C-alpha cells in the first residue's frame, strides 16, 4: 500500500518533469537505435562502429515536427545535411587551416539558418558537431576514414527509420492524457485539503503541503497542453480544444483561489467551527470524487458518473455561524466562489459547451 503511494508520487514527479514521458521514450529509442546499428555493423572494425553509433545518436536529436509528413521532411533534410557536413569534415581534416576555416564558417551558418523556423531546434548544433567529430576522430589517415563511411550511412538510415516509424510521438493523445492527469491532480489536491481540514495540524509549513505543491504541477500540465494546443495538431477540432483549455485554466485558477483562501486562514490562525469544518470536508470529498470520476475521452468529449451535490447545506451552516469578522467573511466568500466556479466549469465541460 505504502509502496503504491510512493510509486504513484514518483510517477507524478516524472510526469510533471516530462509530460507524456516524451523525453524518456526518446532517450530509450535513441539507445535502442544505437544498439541496433551496432548489431548491424558488428563484424566491422571499431572505427566503423564508432562512426555508426555517433551518427545514429546525433541524428536522432533535433527532429521536432509534430505531424508525420513534416517529420519525414525533416528527417530527409537533416540526414542529407548531416551526411554532407560529415563528409566535408573528412575532406578537410588533413589541413589544420582548412579545418579551422570550415568549423568557423559552419559555426556561423548553423546559427544563421536558425531564422528559418529552427530557433529552438538542436539540429543545427548536431550538424556542426558531426562535422567537428569527422575532423577529430582518430583515424590513421583520411583514406582510412573514407573506408568507414558506410558506418555513417548505416547510422543515418537506422536513425531515420527509428524517428519516423518507431513509436512516433502522438500529441493529441498526450493532450488527452495530460487532461486526465489534471483531473487526477485536482482530485488528489482536494482530497488532501480535506485531510488538512480534519487533522487541524497547527505546526506545519503551509507551502510544503501536498495540495499547495499540486498547484505547481497543475500549471506544468497546463503549459504542456498549451504547447500542444499551439502546435495545431488537432485539425478541425482546434476550436474545441482551445475552449477546453480555457476551462482547464479556469479550474486551475479556482483551485488556486481555494488554496489561497486556506493560506489566509492559516496566516490569521482562524479557527473554523466543527460543523463548518466537517461540512467543508464533506464538500471536498464530493469534489474529489467528482474529479476522480471525470474523464476526457479520445474524441475530446468528457464523461463522468452522475454525482449530485449542492452548496445549500453549506450556506445553512454559514447562516448559523453569524460571522462578522471581515477577513473571515472574505475567506469564506472566496472559498464558496471557488467551489461554485469549479462546479460551473466542470458542468460546462460535461455538457460539451463550446463557449466558456
Amino acid at each position, binding site marked *: 500500500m505504502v509502496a503504491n503511494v510512493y510509486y504513484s508520487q514518483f510517477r507524478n514527479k516524472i510526469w510533471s518533469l516530462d509530460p507524456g514521458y516524451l523525453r524518456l521514450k*526518446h532517450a530509450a529509442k535513441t539507445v535502442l537505435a544505437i544498439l541496433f546499428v551496432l548489431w548491424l555493423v558488428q563484424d566491422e572494425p571499431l572505427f566503423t562502429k564508432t562512426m555508426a553509433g555517433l551518427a545514429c545518436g546525433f541524428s536522432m536529436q533535433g527532429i521536432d515536427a509534430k505531424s508525420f509528413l513534416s517529420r519525414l521532411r525533416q528527417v530527409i533534410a537533416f540526414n542529407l545535411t548531416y551526411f554532407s557536413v560529415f563528409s566535408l569534415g573528412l575532406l578537410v581534416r588533413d589541413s589544420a587551416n582548412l579545418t579551422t576555416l570550415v568549423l568557423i*564558417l559552419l559555426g556561423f551558418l548553423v546559427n544563421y539558418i536558425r531564422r528559418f523556423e529552427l530557433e529552438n531546434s538542436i539540429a543545427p548544433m548536431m550538424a556542426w558537431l558531426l562535422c567537428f567529430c569527422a575532423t577529430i576522430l582518430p583515424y590513421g589517415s583520411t583514406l582510412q576514414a573514407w573506408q568507414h563511411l558506410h558506418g555513417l550511412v548505416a547510422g543515418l538510415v537506422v536513425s531515420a527509420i527509428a524517428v519516423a516509424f518507431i513509436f512516433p510521438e502522438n500529441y493529441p493523445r498526450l493532450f488527452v492524457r495530460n487532461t486526465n492527469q489534471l483531473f487526477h491532480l485536482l482530485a488528489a489536491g482536494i482530497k488532501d485539503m480535506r485531510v488538512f481540514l480534519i487533522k487541524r495540524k497547527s505546526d506545519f509549513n503551509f507551502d510544503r503541503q501536498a495540495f499547495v505543491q499540486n498547484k505547481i504541477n497543475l500549471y506544468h500540465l497546463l503549459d504542456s497542453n*498549451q504547447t500542444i494546443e499551439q502546435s495545431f495538431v488537432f485539425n478541425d477540432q482546434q476550436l474545441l480544444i482551445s475552449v477546453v483549455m480555457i476551462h482547464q485554466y479556469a479550474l486551475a*485558477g479556482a483551485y488556486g483561489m481555494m488554496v489561497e483562501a486556506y493560506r489566509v486562514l492559516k496566516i490569521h490562525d482562524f479557527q473554523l467551527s466543527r460543523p463548518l469544518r466537517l461540512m467543508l470536508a464533506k464538500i471536498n470529498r464530493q469534489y474529489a470524487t467528482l474529479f476522480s470520476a471525470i474523464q476526457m475521452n479520445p474524441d475530446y468529449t468528457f464523461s463522468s458518473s452522475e454525482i449530485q451535490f449542492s452548496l445549500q447545506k453549506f450556506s445553512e451552516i454559514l447562516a448559523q455561524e453569524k460571522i462578522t469578522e471581515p477577513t473571515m467573511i472574505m475567506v469564506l466568500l472566496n472559498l464558496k466562489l471557488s467551489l461554485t466556479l469549479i462546479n460551473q466549469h466542470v458542468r460546462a465541460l460535461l455538457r460539451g459547451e463550446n463557449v466558456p
Partner: protein
Amino acid sequence: MYLRNTTRMAWQAAIAISLAEMVSYIFQLERGYWVTLAAMALTTLTWGDSLKRSLERVSMTIIGGFFGTLLYWLIPENQYLILGLLLLFVFFTVYLFQIYHLLAMFALTGFVVFLFALFGEWNLLLLRDRILDTALGAVIALLVGRFFLTSKVDIVELFVAHIDKIQAILTLTFEPLHTTEIISTQHLYSNFQMIRKNAVTIRYEMIFQHINSRDFRLLLTQSAFCTQYVISLVDIYTWVKPHLTAAEKKDVDLAFKTTLHNLTVLERHLRKEAHDPAMRVVNLNELLIKAIKSEPQRFASLNSEALGFYNVMYFFARLNTRLNEIHFLLGKNQ
C-alpha cells in the same frame, strides 16, 4: 545597426570558434578541440544564459569526470560493460538535456569518459585536460557574449509588455464597449510563465550588477500574485456581473479605473518616466463592516450571488495592494 538575434548569435559563434582555435594554436594544446567544442556549445543568445550554462558545464565536467573516472577504475576491463555504461550515460544525457540541463552535463561527461575508455585511453591526465579545456572554452564563450554584440534580456520591456496585456484584458472585461468579446486569460498566464522562465537568465545576469536579487525575486512573486488576481477577477466578473446593483457597478468601475491608473503609473515607473503617485483602490474592511452593520441579513448565508460584489472588490483591493508593493520595491532600488 539592427541585427537579428540569429545573425548576432552566428557572429558570436564564429568569433568564439576563431578565438578557441587561436588559443589552441598559440598554447599548442594537445586536445585543443575541447576548447573549441565548449566555446561553440556555450555561446548562447544572452550573456546570462551563457553564464548559467558555463557554470553548469564546468562544475559538472569536474564532478562527472571524477565520478566517471572512478567508475572506470572500479569496473572490470570488459568492452561490453564499458559499452553498456556508455549507453547508460547516453540515455541520461538525451533524457535530461532539455528538462534538467545540469544533470545532463554530468551524464555527458560520463559519456566522454567511457567513449575514450572504449578506445582504451582514459586517464587522469586526460581528465585534467578535459576540465581545463572546457573551462577555457567557457571563458571564451563568456568573453564573446560579454563584449561582442551582447544581447541582454530587457527586463523592463518584459514587464511593460506584461502590464500592457493586463490592462488590455481588464479593459476587455470591464469596459462596456467590449462586452461582446470572449475573454480568455490563458495567454496572460503563459505570458507570465515566459517571464518566469526568463527569470533564471535574468538572475544570472544580475550577479554582476548592483541589483538586489532578493528584491527581484520578490518582484517576481508580487507579479505572479498580480497575474493570479487578474485571472480570478476576469473569471468571476463574467459570472457575478448580472447580480450587481447600479451602485455596486459604479464602485467596480471606480476600482477598475484606479487599477488602470496604478498600472500606467507602474509602467512609467519602470521606464523611469515622470509619473503620478499610485492610488489605493478601497479599504475593503471598512466597506464590509459598513455593509454588515447596515444589512446584516444579507451576510447571513454568505450567498455568492448576493455578495459577488465583495469578491470583485476583494481581488481589486489585493491586486492594487500588490501593485503598491511593487512600486515600493522599485522606489527602494532606485
